[in-house]
């Protein structure tokens, strides 16, 4: 007669302990220590003009509505699959809600317009991300002067020499930060799980 002594029950207990650890805290920890800070980083990298923003609609005269929001206010995140149970397979999405849908598709209303009113295939976020080139001096076509508002002051001018926008790169720089933060996070959790083995 033989009697086997194995450590299978002990292994099973340890693995169950690990599963409980991951299911109980992995996703919320990832959300708090990586995803939410990433949203803040994207916000901080997105420039904000003085006065009212341009993301919130226009009135019947085509003027921006008072109190409209800025592109910077549009950064949001959504947790998919992490609902009530905090289960391990979870997807986090960070996007700018003013210019894009959660799927990454640009919102039709967020596409920039050409002078003739038709739409381009990119949004303000693309210009903030990649910048733009120096423009030829902009001159009035149907009026004697150009009118625009800077810092709440109405300015009239015969032409505007736009130097272009520098690339602020909020998406690419946040991605870089995320890659480093996720690597550190994975390392932290690998150590946490290793601890269950004593």
């Amino acid at each position, binding site marked *: 007669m033989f009697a086997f002594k194995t450590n299978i029950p002990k292994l099973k207990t340890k693995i169950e302990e690990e599963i409980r650890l991951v299911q109980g805290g992995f996703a919320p920890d990832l959300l708090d220590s990586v995803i939410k800070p990433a949203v803040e980083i994207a916000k901080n990298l997105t420039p904000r003009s003085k006065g009212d923003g341009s993301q919130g609609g226009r009135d019947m005269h085509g003027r921006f509505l008072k109190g409209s929001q800025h592109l910077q206010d549009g950064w949001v995140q959504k947790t998919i699959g992490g609902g009530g149970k905090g289960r391990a397979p979870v997807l986090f999405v960070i996007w700018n809600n003013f210019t894009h849908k959660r799927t990454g598709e640009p919102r039709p209303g967020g596409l920039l317009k050409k002078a003739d009113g038709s739409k*381009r295939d990119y949004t303000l976020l693309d210009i903030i991300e990649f*910048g733009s*080139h*120096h423009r030829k001096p902009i001159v009035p076509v149907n009026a004697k002067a150009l009118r625009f508002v800077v810092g709440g002051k109405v300015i009239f001018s015969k032409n505007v020499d736009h130097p272009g926008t520098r690339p602020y790169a909020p998406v690419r*720089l946040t991605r870089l930060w995320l890659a480093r933060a996720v690597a550190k996070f994975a390392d932290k959790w690998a150590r946490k799980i290793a601890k269950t083995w004593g």
Partner: protein
Amino acid sequence: MTIPAYRRQDYIERSILKHIVSTFEQPNADLSGKVSYLDSKFRSDDKDKWVALTFIESGAGRKGETLLQVDVYVRNLEKSAAAADRYGYECARVSHLFEQALHVRTIQLYSFATPSSPSLQAKKFALVQNSDGRFREPNSIRVWGEYEDDIARRTLTYRFILPEDLSSAEQFDD
């Protein structure tokens, strides 16, 4: 303790620019003199094609990475002319020249203590490696479908790191 010259941000950036510019200064390089590092005085009104280089992150040598944005702009000229670049092929060709120039595994680092005659830093290199770990490849390529009515545009982003940045140590011990 001083930061060694090979980890200086300005030297790393200038070494990358030196590599690019020296590539286009070769005989027969048709972009010679048309590559400019953007500054506030740059004006594009009178140019048919130009390339703008912008560093958007300068972390190489500091346990981070350096990102270079390369923007290729080509004016379509007269749309009806035979030479018109209405499908952006000229823009793609110029963009390809840049990909060729940066299709290298390493870029030699120099010290620019004497700017007119930079001195080579022996055995010190920056790696051209994208976020997926691939060498010699850009991090991303953005082809602008309809950027402006008369201008085609392509944007390449390159990532550079130093081999020393890859060490898992939290700090440099040099």
